[in-house]
C-alpha cells in the first residue's frame, strides 16, 4: 500500500507517453485504473480484520452504588417426596417458604388441601437467627405435632417495617396423613397463618431493604422510610415499590411524615412499565386531586433506586401529566430541591473545631483559623447552627449547655441548660435544619430530651421514648424527622434510630427507637453522614479501640472507613459531600484527622490539624 500510493498519484502523468497523433489512447488508461482497484482491494482487505491499533476510547466511571435491582440469588424449592416423614415435611416446608416463586406454589404443596395459607407478595415475616431441626413431639398413625425452636431476631410486618425483638420462640406444626399415606401440614402456628418463618439468611436473600420517600412536616424535605420488600422478579419490583409508596409510611413513621398521594390512589393498568430507561407510572384518577409536583418528587426519589430507570413519566387516569415548568418525561434526579439532606449540601462547607487556643476555628487548611476573638472559651463539642448565627457546646465536664452568638467578633458563651441531677450530663447539642437545638440530659438509666427554639427557653420533650435508658449521643437527621442515638442497652452502647412526631398542638413525641445494626458493639459517637448513612465511631468484634464505620440506616452491612493509625478517636463529624473528620488524641495532643483522599473510602487517615471536636454546620 505504501508503495502503491505514490505510484498511483504520480503514475499517470509519468507513465503515459505522449499519445501518438491519431492513435487510439483508450488502452493506455487501463494501468491507473488497475492500480486504483488494487489499492481499494488492499484497503478493504485491511478493514476486514479486527483492529490492531487506533485511538483511545474512554468512558465515564460507573457509579456502583448499591441498587435495588442488583442481581440477586433465589432459592429453588423442592417438592415434598412421598417417603418424607413429619420432620422432613416441616423442614421442606420451612425451606420452600423462603422461595417467592409463583406465589409460594411449591411451599403450598406441603400443606393439606384444606389448609389455606396465602402469604402473598407482602407477607409478615418472623426472622430467626437460627433454627433447630424440627422435632416430633407427638405422633399417631395419622397425626403428628412437630415443634420448631429457635432464636427470633425480629419481625417484619406486612408493611415491610422491621422491628427488632430478640426472644426465644417455639412454634408447633400440626400434621396429618392424607388417604394416600403422605404427611401434610394441616395446622400452622398462629403467627404463621399468613406469614413466613424465615432465617436471617433467607431474609437477606429473598428480601431487599428499599426506601420509600415521604414529606417531612416542613412539606419540603423528603424522609426515607426503609422497608423490606421481597424480590420475586426484578421486573415487578418497581410496581411493588410504587404500590408500597402509595400505601403510605410504615407504622414507624406514621404520623411523622406526610404522603402527597390522595387516599385511595392506586396503580392502574400494568403498573410501572419500563422501556429504554424510561418508566411510566400509571396512577388511578384519585391522584388527580393531589399535587403533581409533590407526588413527582416522592416517585422520583423512590424510583431512583433502580439503576435501569433514568427518566420516567407520570400518568393519572391514563393521561400524561407534567409538573409545572417541566417536561412530561422527568429525570429521576430532577427533584434535588426535596433531597432528604437539603439541596444545598453539594457545596463543600467549612468544618469548625476548637483550635489550639480554645477559639472556635475553621479547619480548612493545616492550621485552624479562629473565627472568634476575645477570651479563650472553655467550650467543648461545639455545634454551629445551620444559619451560622449561633454556636452551642458543652462545658468540659458536660454538665452544662452553652450557647454563643454571633459567630464573629468576641461573643461570650452563656449557659443555656444546666443539669440539676447528680451525675447528670448532656449529650453534645445537635441542631436541626429548622433551627431547633436538641440535647439529651442523661444519667444512669435515665434521660430527658430538651429542645430549644431560638428566642425561647429550652423545653423538655413530653414524650421521650428512651427516658429509662442512658443516652450517649443524640443526633437529629437533616430531614428533622429521624433521630439517631447511642443508647445503653444492658450495658452495651447500641445505635438506634427513632422518629420525631409533632402533633397539631405542637406537642413533640420522640420515640419508636429501633436498633440499626447488631454488628457494631461499643459505639462511642455518631453523626449523620447523609440521609442513608451514619458515620459511627465504634468497635466491631475484634477491634481493640473505636474505629470509624459507615453504617447504612437500612440495616445493611457496615463498612469501615479509611486505613492507618488514628490514635484514640473521640469524636466524629461528617456531612454530605464533605470529608469525614475525626477528633482524636494521639501522643497527648489533640488532633483532627482527615482522609488523604476523601472520595476514596479506604484512603489513609492523616492526623495533622491541631484542633479538637470537629463539626459541620449543616
Amino acid at each position, binding site marked *: 500500500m505504501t508503495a502503491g500510493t505514490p505510484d498511483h498519484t504520480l503514475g499517470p502523468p509519468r507513465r503515459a507517453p505522449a499519445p501518438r497523433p491519431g492513435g487510439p489512447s483508450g488502452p493506455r488508461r487501463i494501468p491507473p485504473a488497475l492500480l486504483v482497484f488494487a489499492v481499494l482491494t488492499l484497503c478493504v482487505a485491511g478493514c476486514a480484520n479486527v483492529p490492531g491499533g487506533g485511538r483511545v476510547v474512554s468512558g465515564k466511571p460507573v457509579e456502583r452504588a448499591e441498587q435495588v435491582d442488583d442481581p*440477586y*440469588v*433465589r*432459592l*429453588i424449592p*423442592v417438592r415434598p417426596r412421598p417417603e418424607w416423614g413429619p420432620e422432613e415435611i416441616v423442614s421442606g416446608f420451612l425451606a*420452600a417458604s423462603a422461595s417467592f416463586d409463583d406465589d409460594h406454589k411449591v411451599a403450598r404443596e406441603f400443606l393439606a388441601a384444606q389448609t389455606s395459607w396465602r402469604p402473598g407478595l407482602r407477607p409478615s415475616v418472623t426472622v430467626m437467627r437460627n433454627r433447630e431441626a424440627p422435632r416430633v413431639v407427638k405422633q399417631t398413625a395419622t397425626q403428628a405435632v412437630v415443634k420448631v425452636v429457635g432464636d427470633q431476631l425480629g419481625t417484619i410486618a406486612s408493611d415491610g417495617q422491621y422491628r427488632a425483638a430478640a426472644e426465644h420462640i417455639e412454634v408447633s406444626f400440626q400434621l396429618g396423613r392424607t388417604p394416600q399415606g403422605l404427611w401434610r401440614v394441616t395446622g400452622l402456628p398462629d403467627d404463621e397463618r399468613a406469614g413466613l418463618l424465615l432465617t436471617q439468611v433467607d431474609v437477606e436473600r429473598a428480601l431487599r431493604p428499599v426506601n420509600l420517600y415521604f414529606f417531612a412536616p416542613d412539606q419540603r424535605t423528603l424522609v426515607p422510610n426503609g422497608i423490606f420488600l421481597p424480590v420475586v422478579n426484578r421486573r415487578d419490583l418497581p410496581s411493588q415499590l410504587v404500590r408500597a409508596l402509595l400505601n403510605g409510611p410504615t407504622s414507624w413513621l406514621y404520623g411523622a411524615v406526610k404522603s402527597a398521594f390522595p387516599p385511595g390512589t392506586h396503580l392502574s393498568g400494568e403498573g410501572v412499565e419500563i422501556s429504554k430507561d424510561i418508566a411510566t407510572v400509571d396512577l388511578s384518577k384519585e391522584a388527580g386531586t393531589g399535587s403533581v409536583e409533590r407526588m413527582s418528587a416522592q416517585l422520583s426519589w423512590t424510583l431512583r433506586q433502580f*439503576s435501569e430507570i433514568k427518566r420516567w413519566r407520570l400518568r393519572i387516569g391514563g393521561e400524561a401529566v407534567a409538573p409545572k415548568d417541566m417536561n412530561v418525561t422527568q429525570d429521576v434526579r430532577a427533584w434535588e430541591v426535596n433531597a432528604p439532606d437539603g439541596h444545598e449540601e453539594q457545596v463543600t462547607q467549612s468544618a469548625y473545631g476548637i483550635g489550639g487556643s480554645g477559639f472556635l476555628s475553621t479547619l480548612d487548611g493545616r492550621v485552624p483559623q479562629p473565627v472568634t476573638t476575645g477570651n479563650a472559651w472553655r467550650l467543648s463539642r461545639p455545634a454551629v447552627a445551620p444559619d451560622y448565627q449561633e454556636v452551642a457546646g458543652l462545658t468540659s465536664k458536660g454538665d452544662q449547655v452553652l450557647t454563643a452568638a454571633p459567630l464573629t467578633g468576641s461573643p461570650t458563651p452563656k449557659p443555656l441548660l444546666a443539669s440539676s441531677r447528680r451525675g447528670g450530663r448532656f449529650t453534645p447539642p445537635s441542631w436541626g435544619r429548622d433551627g431547633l437545638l436538641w440535647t439529651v440530659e442523661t444519667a444512669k438509666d435515665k434521660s430527658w430530651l430538651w429542645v430549644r427554639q431560638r428566642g425561647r427557653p429550652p423545653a423538655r420533650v413530653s414524650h421521650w421514648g428512651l427516658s429509662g435508658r442512658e443516652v450517649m449521643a443524640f443526633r437529629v437527621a437533616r430531614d428533622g424527622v429521624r433521630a439517631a442515638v447511642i443508647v445503653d442497652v444492658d450495658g452495651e452502647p447500641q445505635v438506634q434510630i427513632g422518629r420525631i412526631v409533632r402533633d397539631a398542638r405542637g406537642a413533640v413525641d420522640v420515640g419508636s427507637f429501633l436498633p440499626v445494626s447488631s454488628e457494631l458493639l461499643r459505639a462511642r459517637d455518631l453523626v449523620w453522614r447523609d440521609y442513608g448513612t451514619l458515620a459511627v465511631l465504634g468497635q466491631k468484634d475484634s477491634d481493640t479501640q473505636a474505629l470509624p464505620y459507615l453504617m447504612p440506616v437500612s440495616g445493611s452491612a457496615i463498612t469501615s472507613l479509611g486505613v492507618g493509625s488514628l490514635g484514640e478517636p473521640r469524636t466524629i463529624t461528617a456531612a454530605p459531600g464533605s470529608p469525614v473528620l475525626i477528633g482524636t488524641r494521639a501522643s497527648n495532643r489533640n488532633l483532627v484527622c482527615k482522609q488523604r483522599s476523601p472520595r476514596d473510602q479506604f484512603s489513609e487517615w492523616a492526623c495533622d490539624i491541631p484542633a479538637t471536636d470537629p463539626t459541620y454546620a449543616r
Partner: protein
Amino acid sequence: MNAVKRLARRGLGTLRRAVRGVSRRGYQRWRRSIQVRIVTWTLCISVIVVAILGVFLMQQVSSALMDGKVKAARLQLDEGLAQVQRDLGNSPEDGGGRLDAVVNRLKARSGPSGLYEVYIRDTSDRFSGGRATNELREESVPRRLREELRHAPTGSRSYTFGKLSYVGRESRSERGLIVGGKTAQFELYYLFPLEQEQRTLTNVARSLAGVGVVLVLLLAAIASLVTRQVVIPVRLAAQGAQRLAAGRLEERMRVRGEDDLARLARSFNDMAANLQDKIGELEDLSQVQRQFVSDVSHELRTPLTTIRIAADMLYENRDTFDDPAVRRSAELLQSQLERFESLLGDLLEISRHDAGAATLDAESLDMRDLVLRTVGDIQGLAERKGSRVVLQLPGEPCMAEVDRRRVERILRNLLVNAVEHGEGEDIVVSVAADRDAVAVAVRDHGVGLKPGEGQMVFDRFWRADPARARTTGGTGLGLSISREDAQLHGGWLQAWGEPGAGSQFRLSLPRVAGAELRGSPLPLVPPGAGDARPLFAELEAGE
C-alpha cells in the same frame, strides 16, 4: 350474486389470459434471445452458488462464535468450580448463607449487564433444589445435562445448548449455552444467554443476504453486458444476411476494431462481395442466354416463314408426287414444321416471361364460360382417346378478373395433358369460387405421378416418361408456361398425383387481379383419393 360471479369469472379469465400471454411472451423471448437465456442461466447458477456460499459462511461464523463462547464459558466454569472448592469445601456448616454468598460472588463477576446466570446445587441438601441467580428457572438446566453430570466422575465438565426460561417471562424463553461441572458435593452450572450472539448472527445473515442479492444482480448485469457485446454484432450480421438474402447485395457490416467479431464482419463482407460478384456474373450470363434464345427464335422465324411457304406448297402438291416416299416426306415435313412453329412460339413466350415482358390483359370473365369453351375445343381429342370429360360447374357465375388468352392456354394445357395421360378414363373438371378466389381442378385417372414428380412436372422439357410416344406433340414447355401465367395472375398452379390413382391439377386465381391469394376454394387432393400422406407439392406463387 350472479353479476358478482360473472365479474369474478371475467376477472379470472382476464388474469389467466394475462398470465398466459406473459408466459408465452416470456417463452418466446427465451426461445429467441441468447441474451435472455444467458442472463437467466447466470442468475440461476449464481443464486445457487451464492446460497451455498452464504450457508457455508454462516456456518463458519456461527461455529466460530459458538466455539469462542464455549471456550470462555468453560474457563468461567473452571474458575467458578475452583472458587466453590475453596469457599465451600465439602461440608458447608451454615450452608445457606455461605452458599448464597458464593453464588453472589460468582454472579458478581458476570457484571451488571448479566453475561450469565449461575445455578448451584448442593447434592447433600435434601430440602432445597439449589440456588439460582435472578429470575432463572431451574428447568433451564436440561435433564440430559444433569444426567450426564450425575454419572460423570467428580471434577468433570459438560456443556450443552438449551432454552433458558425465567420467572415472570413465561412466554418468552431464549436460547442459551449451559455449562456444568461438579465437585464432590456441588453441581455448578453457568447459563449464558445467546441473545447477543443471535443478534450478531442475524445481522451477519442480513448483510450476507444483501451482499448476495447485490452480487447476483451484478453478475446478471455483467452477463447481460457481455452477451450484449457479442449479441449485437451477431444480430447486425443476421440483419445483414437477411438483407443480402432479400437481394440487397450491396449490404455490408460495419467493421470495428480488430477482435473476433470484427473478423466475422470482415469475412461476412468478403462473402457478400464475392456473392455479389458471382450473382452479377450469373445474371449477366443468364441475360445473355435469354437474349440468345430470344434472338435465335426471332432469327429462326424469318427463314421458317420461307420454309413454311415452301413446305405448304409441297404439301398441297403432294398428290402430284409419284413416289409415295416423297409424298410421305412432304407430310412429315409439314407436321414437324407445325411442331417446330409451336415450339418456337412457346420458346418466345417463355423468353418473354423470363425477360419480364409478359403483361396481364385482365377482364372480368365467368370461369365457367372459359372452361366450357376449352372443353369444347379438346372434345374431339378426348373422344379420340376414348375419354369422357365430366364437368362439375357451380350454378352461379364465377366471375374473376383474368387474362382470357392466358387462362384458356392454361386450361387447354391441363386438359390436353389429362387426355394424354388419362388412359381413356374419365376426366373430371371442377370449378368452384369463394369470396376471394376461383379455382379450376382437372382430374384424371391415369398413371398418376411418382413421389417428387408433382414439382418436376412444371420443369421445362420434363416428361413423365421419356419413352412415351408423342401422340399429341407437346413441346415440354406447356406446364412451365402455364405456371408462369398463373403466377402472373397472382395465382397458384399445383399438381397432385399418386401412382395408379391418377393426378389432379388445380388452378387457383384471385377474383381481383393482383390480389393476394390466401386459399383455394377447391382441395388439391381430390376427395376420396388422398391417403394419410398425399404426395403433393404445394408451390405457391409468391415464393
